[in-house]
């Protein structure tokens, strides 16, 4: 097999290996373990509380990275606008007795309005 063909093949297939092993397997293995363990582990046990903490912190880390260091068009907006939009969304989520839909909508409306405002001032 030629070197370039091999590299090309690897480049095409590597993401799928990642998706299958680091994505599918790494996710579904917990679902399968959940089926097999089926109620043998206590849900409020200390170990599971810690595990949930680690998982929550990890996903929260993703959230703040997506807001602070976005990719694509969103990166053109000022940081304060993204932070304010997220804060407004979170506040609206609370005000609406924890309805996710309201929170997301409020953040989006604030972002668009702010973005139009920033563009108007700049232009």
């Amino acid at each position, binding site marked *: 097999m030629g070197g370039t063909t091999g590299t090309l093949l690897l480049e095409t297939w590597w*993401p799928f290996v990642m998706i*299958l*092993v680091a994505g599918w397997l790494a996710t579904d293995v917990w679902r399968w373990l*959940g089926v097999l363990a089926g109620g043998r*582990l206590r849900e409020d046990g200390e170990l599971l509380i810690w595990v949930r*903490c680690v998982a929550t912190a990890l996903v*929260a880390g993703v959230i703040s990275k997506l807001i602070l260091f976005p990719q*694509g*068009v969103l990166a053109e907006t000022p940081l304060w606008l993204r932070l304010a939009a997220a804060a407004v*969304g979170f506040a609206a989520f609370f005000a609406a007795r924890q309805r996710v839909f309201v929170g997301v909508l409020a953040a989006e409306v604030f972002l668009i309005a702010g973005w139009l405002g920033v563009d108007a001032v700049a232009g």
Partner: protein
Amino acid sequence: MSASDRFTPDNSPAEPPVTSGVWMARGARAAVSIPAFILTAAFVGYAGLARETGLTLAETLAMTGFVWALPSIVVLTGAISSGMGLIPAAIAVALASVRLMPMTMALMPIIKVPGKTKTWQLLLASHFVAVTAWVFAMKNLPDMPREGRLPFFLGFGGAVTSFVFCMTGVSYLLVESMPGMVAGALFLLTPVYFLCSLWGAARLNADRAAMVAGLLLGPVFFAYLPGLDLLWTGLVGGSLAYLVTRIVRRGLR
């Protein structure tokens, strides 16, 4: 094994005339709901994110179908885009997905017919366990006859997954021709959706403390330990939150 141990959903003698197929169809119909709509919107937002990150349509769809848990999908996307190796990426995704195990465990006694439901059927159904379907199932399944629960859940999960799968593909293709501002708004959808739903899913103070710790530590580790920052954020932030709330809960024991 006795005859009652065999899986015969359609012709059990003492069964009321409602078959598994009907339960499945009912589940699919119940999928037309507000939570499913929000989830679809979140995946539409993810499609935009995936496209910006440089994933192909096939990769985006493969992730949606195979992983089927948005936090894990977003973590994996970040891992691929930052060139993380297979093992660290798998660890990061596994850490982000651990919560699926207690969720699945809690669902099992509700969904199975003791002595009748086969383990492989449960393994198959477990793929649909993600926040949306799980919350719906925990709330609605207990009111249904036991025989109907698994097919109902399969119908619900299958319908939501297929619909979201298609919408993700469609929005991936459309995001290119969207005005910049609409696309940008889509990218913000994912983090805000998680911000709200993660808080909503938190049951203990430990969960909430972990969320705050992760939000604050994420950028710090990203700046100082790029590449493995998510792992460190999870382990350090989560353990810190656990220890502090544990001391508050039960003192220094």
